[in-house]
């Protein structure tokens, strides 16, 4: 399929090299995209996928190399040039303004005007036209900050289409979506291709790659590691190409030896930001040395459950006991001090301080304690040696420990959080979406780290939207439905189908008894 193609590609990237201080993000990269095709770009966290796409989109200027659009050599000095050449990009971190409406976000930079004034009516009309054409439902007058992540995603796609993009770059669009939203999203992608758009699609989910790709390019350490043909490639072969070694998809774990409860939640009731009661009378015990997985369709109270247990959100009722102490009214700091680690769902908001260095982020939960603090002063030597050690141990890809976390690739930011929360004196661990946006190799690594902690007697509460992750890690699984656990299963016995049914429909009391 690839190779002896006579057509002029819509996008032809040749020999692109892009360096940042201390990092070669891309080195001599080639990429060819043909009209009406989906080209999947794969690679580990930090392999240089987003950087390459930002070069194509005119946001970064390459050090070397050339880009051709429909055979014409181009030199972009800014995003405007790329947009003019029909290139649109949905960024890994959404570039939306939450206080603006959908319509305002869409027209920003390419405003429709009527005389000197903005023509919001015309904008609304065109947006609805695009929505109908590609099946992207979202209210043009809604404030973007009020939209779900899936809807925000659609706004990003509409933004690109509104600028008449013919080449669409989608940077990990599915990482933040729920399984249902992912299916919907692929519907949109298909209709885009049907209308003749060409797409570069970045993802870490190999199953998705095999389902949609026409061509595959794999990056490793900034270089093209190889290309693959989706009709012959397998998940395993792709993973090997990405990581450069064998990857084990199914984690190996021994039997659990549960001890005393470490997290005991009784009758918990919590409200979300809008005042809706999303956790409503939830009770559960997580014992030492076991992983309790919470499965459920997103929006059934997962976020509020995690925030309440870690002290970030006040409880309306019920109690939370951690390691035998009443933690219902404790602050996040007090709960951390009890020996609780927390990997939060929203990495940038609650996990790292983007402008701080890696070293500082690695001690955010213990900077005030020796050896990192000597009375009121920081102990730079101890901080640095801790950082060096964790960066090596958790394989954070970075030129140095003093780099701002903002400059790391998304997956490496996540590794910084995991490194911080899994070290130290943890006895209880609350983990939300721990591997979102991570490559297969990193997922394997983090899963093994969590299991190792369990084996040392840590009790783990795991919340994940990935059913596969829940099934492969959990010793017990609870299904969360409308703020309650409607069923508890033994991790070894549960099946996808059983869980999926309960997640979608809620309780059937007969099916509820299982290991408890």
């Amino acid at each position, binding site marked *: 399929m690839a190779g002896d193609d006579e057509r002029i590609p819509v996008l032809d990237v040749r020999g692109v090299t892009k360096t940042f201080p201390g990092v070669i993000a891309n080195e001599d990269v080639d990429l060819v995209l043909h009209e009406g095709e989906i080209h999947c770009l794969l690679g580990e966290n930090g392999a240089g996928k987003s950087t390459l796409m930002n070069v194509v989109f005119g946001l970064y200027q390459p050090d070397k190399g050339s880009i051709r659009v429909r055979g014409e050599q181009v030199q972009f000095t800014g*995003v405007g040039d790329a947009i003019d050449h029909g290139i649109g990009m949905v960024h890994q971190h959404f570039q939306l303004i939450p206080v*603006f409406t959908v319509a305002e976000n869409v027209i920003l930079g390419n405003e429709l*005007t009527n005389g000197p004034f903005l023509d919001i009516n015309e904008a609304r009309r065109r947006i609805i036209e695009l929505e109908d054409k590609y099946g992207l439902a979202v209210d043009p007058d809604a404030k973007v900050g009020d939209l779900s992540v899936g809807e925000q995603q659609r706004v990003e796609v509409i*933004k690109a289409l509104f600028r008449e993009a013919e080449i669409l770059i989608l940077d990990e669009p599915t990482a933040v979506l729920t399984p249902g939203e992912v299916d919907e999203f692929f519907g949109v992608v298909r209709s885009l291709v049907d209308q003749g758009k060409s797409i570069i699609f970045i993802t870490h989910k190999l199953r998705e790659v095999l389902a949609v790709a026409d061509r595959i390019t794999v990056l490793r350490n900034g270089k093209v590691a190889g290309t693959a043909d989706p009709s012959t490639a397998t998940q395993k072969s792709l993973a090997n190409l990405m990581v450069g070694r064998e990857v084990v998809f199914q984690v190996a774990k021994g039997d659990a030896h549960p001890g005393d409860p470490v997290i005991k939640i009784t009758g918990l009731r919590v409200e979300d930001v809008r005042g809706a009661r999303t956790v409503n*009378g939830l009770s559960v015990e997580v014992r030492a040395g076991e992983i309790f997985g919470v499965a459920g369709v997103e929006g059934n109270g997962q976020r509020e459950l995690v925030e309440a247990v870690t002290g970030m959100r006040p409880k309306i009722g019920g109690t939370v006991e951690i390691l035998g102490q009443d933690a219902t009214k404790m602050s996040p700091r007090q709960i951390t001090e009890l020996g609780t680690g927390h990997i939060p769902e929203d990495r940038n908001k609650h996990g790292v301080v983007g402008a701080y260095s890696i070293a500082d982020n690695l001690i955010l939960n213990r900077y005030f304690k020796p050896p990192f603090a000597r009375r009121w002063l920081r102990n730079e030597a101890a901080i640095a040696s801790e950082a060096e050690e964790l960066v090596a141990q958790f394989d954070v890809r970075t030129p140095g420990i003093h780099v701002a976390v903002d400059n790391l690739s998304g997956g490496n930011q996540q590794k910084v959080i995991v490194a911080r929360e899994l070290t130290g004196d943890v006895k209880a661990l609350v983990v939300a979406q721990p591997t979102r946006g991570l490559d297969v190799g990193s997922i394997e690594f983090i899963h093994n780290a969590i299991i190792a902690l369990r084996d040392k007697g840590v009790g783990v509460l795991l919340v994940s939207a990935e059913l596969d992750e829940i099934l492969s890690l959990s010793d017990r699984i609870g299904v969360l439905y409308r703020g309650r656990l409607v069923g508890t299963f033994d991790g070894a016995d549960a099946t996808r189908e059983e869980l999926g049914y309960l997640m979608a429909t809620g309780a059937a009391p007969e099916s509820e008894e299982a290991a408890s």
Partner: protein
Amino acid sequence: MSAQSIDLTAGDLVEARRFGRRQITGMVFGVAGIALIALVAPNITGDTRTFAFEPPPDALDFSFDPPTMVTIIGLIYLLAGGLSFLPQQFDRWAGRGQLLAAAATIPLILVVALGLSATPATNVTNLFDESLVLATPIALGAMTGLWSERSGIINIGIEGTMLGSAGVGFMIFATLGEASSTTWLWIAILVAVLTGGALALLLAVLSIRYQINQIVAGVVINLFALGLTGFLRSEVIVPSGNSKGISTSEFGIPLLEQIPILGDTFFTGKPIHYMMYAVVFLTWLVMFRTAWGLRVRSCGEDPHAAETLGIDVIKTRYRSVVLGGFIAGLAGAWFSMESQSGFEDNMTNAAGFIALAAMIFGKWTPGGAFAGALLFGFARALGSRLQFLEVEISGFGIPSEFFQSLPFAVTLVVVAGALGRSIAPAAEGQPYRPSK
């Protein structure tokens, strides 16, 4: 899994209506209402008092007896308090009630002050006229702040920008126009406007180009302007022998100025004062109805997102900050060439900082900031009026500052309760570096 059977309990229902800021504000109004009816009304004089709306003789006026008025306003407060404790779905009514009660505070202050004073009548039209005039530099300063901060640059240099423009403008007028030529007066006002732009450009260069902490950059502007104008006054303006002269003159808008009562208050005035209304309106129009305004706001919210849409954040910020500087320059001209003719050291007297407060009070919107400016203008006008009325309780004079501070106390309550939190532009104050 016994705990799962826990269902809605009585406790839940009580919790359902929780105690938020709205309820606290409501309580404050309720308690104040009771105090007004039970304590203030019985003790205030029952003699008739009069608000005049026109100068005597045959003035249009409104006479009342203070206890009745105090009781009526007390009832409005109680109503506002009561509304705040209705179930959630009436929340909007609670908000409106509190705004009404807050508005009723202005007549309340006047009624009480007049009741406690020996003077039986006061002209309120004048008072409002003065409020509007004194609001001029505050409203202009608030628009300066708005243009700067909506684009993402914190501007605490408004004070210095105004002062510098007032000084440089008047210096031109004194030296070249001998403080007496109308043509030179207008040229000097133009110079003041340009000076404002230049000082704002300095702020922009410091904070955008050199990425100096924006608060520090603002302080630099303030100190620089203070030193510069002090120097210009003693070395140029005073030696010129023209320390005083003419200022802009009052004029009426044809036809409209003849409307009784309103004509005098709203349709006669001085030019910079009128320009202030135009600036407020245009600020709203451009910022919220044009493409450029949308871009400015996007730079203040998320410059990186703006960048991914091909917007030149740096250029947009420079332009917006400098535009704000021109407006501050106009406010400076008001001080030295409209409200009086002449320049004194530090004559802006913190108006630039009050303008910032008005902007925050108005939640970074032109209309809200203008309302804030009016409130501050009213407080200033009230202060001088009360000094004149000599308010006293059983022989002891009450300092006018006490009544003067009342509108601010009410503002605090209202901002906390009825208006809710004000949220600054998200990217304000953060240095921005474009991607490369």
